[in-house]
């Protein structure tokens, strides 16, 4: 049995994959040097870094020189999106057309580069954008970059990235952090960002892929391009590559099992009174489900489930981490309080899912009884 039993928040961070752990421990002693140096330690680190790039490139279906390692998923998003924007506009106030449900790292990057020409495109009740609405926004004057996630990190809904009909030459930034290692990647993008700890790699490793055909300029001072986005943590990058390779080798099997387990949790949540399961039931991430329960606060649910041994996330406000409710749930018109996001590990078992469903039913019933409605 996994020692992480009950941990159901892999959309925040997946436990370290055994392949990553093994690779990391071996690489810590060998990959400490600066890969830019010509001495032996530098050459060793360079060898490991080149290996990591080659493996990640193969996993993502791109060329090794199109891969860079960043300090985190957020860092990869910032460098990817702002780098496309800078290459197009020279840093002078051009707009980004993006969905309303992008990860906060995307929205914060957009806010950091102020422009009167930014456009936010709304979503339907399932959290999906209409590709025609993105295409229309992309054609507005002043829009220099389009940003669309591959799938939503809070509700799991896949976005129609490959259905976008964008003007020739307009770059597309794809935040693929929620789906790398879990779903086939979209083909249509100029730059793509991901985060290793979401697929079982170590924390502190982001991946930025930039097509050779894309115009991209490093947006921050002092960097030399994709090969050196700051100082790459070489052992971490190699461990991230090993985890990605291992996860992809069993992707379809894992996804099929998780899809079935999530269907079970969806059915259990939907059977609770005054509870709404949100996100597309089919066109979604395999491992993630979100639902909201009327009359219960998100942190009450999270704490009660934790006492039953289950670790889940919540997009509700009034939790310790935020005062504002989830912008994703708000954009969908979904209930923002009483929200729970469950995301399965690759080794979550059917038994564990059944135990979770029983705990959820007990917790919701118990808290509701105390509300006195």
């Amino acid at each position: 049995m996994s020692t992480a039993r009950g941990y159901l928040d892999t959309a925040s961070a997946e436990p370290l994959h055994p392949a990553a752990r093994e690779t990391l421990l071996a690489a810590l002693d060998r990959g400490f040097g600066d890969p830019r140096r010509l001495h032996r330690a530098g050459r060793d680190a360079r060898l490991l870094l080149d290996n990591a790039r080659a493996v990640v490139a193969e996993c993502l279906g791109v060329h090794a020189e199109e891969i860079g390692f960043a300090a985190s998923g957020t860092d990869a998003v910032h460098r990817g999106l702002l780098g496309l924007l800078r290459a197009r506009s020279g840093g002078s106030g051009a707009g980004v057309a993006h969905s309303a449900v992008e990860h906060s790292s995307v929205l914060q990057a957009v806010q950091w580069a102020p422009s009167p020409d930014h456009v936010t495109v709304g979503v339907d009740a399932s959290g999906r954008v209409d590709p025609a609405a993105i295409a229309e926004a992309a054609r507005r004057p002043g829009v220099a970059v389009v940003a669309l996630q591959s799938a939503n990190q809070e509700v799991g809904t896949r976005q129609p990235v490959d259905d976008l009909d964008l003007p020739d030459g307009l770059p597309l930034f794809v935040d693929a952090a929620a789906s790398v290692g879990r779903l086939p990647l979209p083909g249509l993008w100029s730059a793509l960002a991901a985060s290793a700890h979401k697929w079982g790699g170590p924390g502190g490793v982001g991946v930025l892929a930039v097509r050779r055909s894309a115009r991209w300029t490093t947006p921050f001072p002092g960097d030399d391009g994709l090969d050196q986005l700051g100082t790459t943590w070489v052992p971490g990058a190699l461990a991230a590559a090993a985890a990605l390779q291992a996860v992809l080798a069993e992707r379809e099997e894992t996804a099929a099992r998780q899809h079935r387990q999530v269907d079970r949790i969806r059915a259990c949540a939907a059977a609770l009174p005054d509870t709404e399961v949100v996100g597309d039931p089919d066109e979604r991430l395999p491992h993630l489900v979100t639902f909201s329960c009327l009359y219960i606060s998100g942190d009450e649910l999270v704490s009660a489930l934790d006492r039953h041994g289950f670790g889940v996330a919540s997009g509700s406000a009034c939790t310790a981490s935020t005062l504002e409710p989830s912008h994703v749930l708000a954009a969908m018109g979904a209930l923002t309080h009483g929200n729970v996001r469950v995301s399965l590990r690759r080794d979550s078992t059917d038994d564990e899912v059944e135990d979770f469903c029983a705990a959820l039913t007990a917790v919701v019933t118990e808290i509701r009884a105390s509300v006195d409605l």
Partner: protein
Amino acid sequence: MSAAVELDCRGAVCPRPIIELAKALPSVAVGETLAVVADDPAARHDVPAWCRMRGQEYVGEEVADDGAPRYVVRRTS
């Protein structure tokens, strides 16, 4: 607009304003409105979502005399 019942939920955090709304619903007749004044940011999303989930009509958002948001709901069932 005037409402048959007005709930003062200033300072209450989610989901308290929605609980008060649900408790007060039976006190108005079908076709009448009730209003909830709530400064919690979640109420802006959760009052309409509650209406949708409970089959009531969300009339809209207004501003109370002191500037706090006031959400109006019509009982339809």
